[in-house]
């Protein structure tokens, strides 16, 4: 007995005979295509190796795609001794490009931060996207010298170029439900070798409370040392929150989401006992691994010893009032 089954395939969906017969040809072509791309990747790798030795022709090419618009100098940190450009750009924590401090500088050489768009989502009037070129036109750029304290017990002084995050938030038009803001970094397995390792729960996610995000100190950085942000420092745009540990500064941001509930950040997931949502620099709250009452200043040399870590990394005057009444030991 033959049971006739009704088919739900429309005649229009059936592959035409000539295309079907061409299938082998197509597969062949695809095969060649793969070969060609892998060969290209090989040469790219060769170029990358070259670039490390000579003065990075590839890096220069991408630099010309977006030069930094004019910016004004500010009084922020004008008396601080800057960490050298070399140290700022070769000693990085950017796990997407590898967990070694020197790996991001090497592995991010071929990274393409242009073209780049950032999407705005969540508790906003309307979801929208914006290109990096348009973002830098939202507000005048300024240079600010900030101290940066890493949770690992070292610190730097960096001349960032950027604009207050508050300006971007104003443009994003969050609604009244927005209590927090979440930043999502790019997780591109092709360009970022570290993303292929299950070391963190990719993509890298960070967050701030709305008032923290609106604080005049909170910066969206697009450059440092007067030039476009180097890839290893989070090109094309990253967050800088100088009174918090460095890991709060999400790099290579692709998504900004406004939320009603406190976002769970990547490091909170990775070590809930070690990394809290606030992550304010606090010499009184111990970390299970590193001393937080003192720090090593990068570039100070082998015999410089440690310097005392300041409450809120020395920015208490600007940010202290936001945490009045909050138990900072509990909300570390």
């Amino acid at each position, binding site marked *: 007995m033959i049971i006739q089954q009704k088919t739900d395939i429309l005649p229009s969906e059936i592959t035409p005979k000539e295309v079907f017969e061409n299938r082998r040809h197509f597969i062949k072509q695809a095969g060649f295509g793969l070969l060609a791309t892998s060969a290209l990747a090989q040469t790219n790798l060769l170029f990358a190796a070259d670039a490390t030795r000579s003065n990075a022709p590839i890096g220069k090419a991408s630099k010309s795609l977006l030069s930094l618009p004019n910016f004004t100098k500010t009084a922020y940190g004008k008396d601080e001794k800057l960490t050298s450009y070399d140290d700022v750009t070769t*000693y990085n924590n950017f*796990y997407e490009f590898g967990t070694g401090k020197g790996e991001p500088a090497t592995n991010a050489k071929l990274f393409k931060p242009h073209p780049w768009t950032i999407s705005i989502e969540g508790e906003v009037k309307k979801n929208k996207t914006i290109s990096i070129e348009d973002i830098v036109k939202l507000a005048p750029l300024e240079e600010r010298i900030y101290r940066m304290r890493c949770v690992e017990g070292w610190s730097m002084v960096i001349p960032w170029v950027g604009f207050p995050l508050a300006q971007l938030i104003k443009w994003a038009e969050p609604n009244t439900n927005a209590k927090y803001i979440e930043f999502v970094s790019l997780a591109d397995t092709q360009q970022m070798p570290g993303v292929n390792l299950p070391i963190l729960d990719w993509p890298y996610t960070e967050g701030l409370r709305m008032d923290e995000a609106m604080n005049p100190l909170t910066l969206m950085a697009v450059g440092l040392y007067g030039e476009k942000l180097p890839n290893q420092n989070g090109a094309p745009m990253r967050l800088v929150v100088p009174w918090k540990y460095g890991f709060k500064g999400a790099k290579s941001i692709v998504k900004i989401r406004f939320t009603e509930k406190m976002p769970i950040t990547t490091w909170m997931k990775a070590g809930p006992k070690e990394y809290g949502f606030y992550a304010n620099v606090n010499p009184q709250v111990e970390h*299970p*691994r590193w*001393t937080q009452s*003192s720090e090593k200043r990068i*570039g100070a040399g*082998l015999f410089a010893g440690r310097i005392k870590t300041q409450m809120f990394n020395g920015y208490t005057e600007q940010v202290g009032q936001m945490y009045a009444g909050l138990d900072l030991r509990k909300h570390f």
Partner: protein
Amino acid sequence: MQIKQLLRRTPNKKQIGRIKFVLFVLCLVPFMRLIWLCINNGLSANPIEFVERSTGFWALFILLLTLSLSPIRLLFGYVWPLQFRRMLGLMMFFYASLHITIYLWLDYGFDWNDIVKDIIKHPYVLVGALAYLLTVPLALTSNQYMMQKLRERWKQLHLTVYLIAILGVVHFWWLVKKDIREPLFYAVVLGLLLGVRLFYKLRQIKSKSEKIRKMKLSLSV
């Protein structure tokens, strides 16, 4: 074939002395490198951490090398490399001492208040400090005189080297933030080195009890 024969041969006293000297020089290469890098400004952006990590790494590496000589004997039957144990052990002590000195002096500037806090509050520092304290008596009793004086007790005392190695790997593991691939590698190596010993020990016990059983059996017959 010739190489195999050469390996099979036990080197004579003079040759042992030469190999020992080469090993000694090789063990000092990482130290020389640090001095060279220090002079040439090559200790990275965070030089204190660099020298801390480097000396700690070499202490662990040489310790594992020391612990690999017995498995070499058990697995391949070479007895003569055991003669390098003392020197390698002392080399490990040299790097561990450098490691501790850099920590106390360059990192913490002998600020005992901060040092005690760091040791008590951070498990990985505590474990590391414990491991180092345990190596001191081993280094002090590593001479012929103490060996003869302590005899059986010397053997028992020097068994702590296994504990030191485990503490050393734990120290490394706990200090790492998230990417545990490197300490995992050393944990596996240590596991293998201890595993080989355990395997042979168990086999020895088994064959012994087998013999006793057979003896009893023959007696009862």
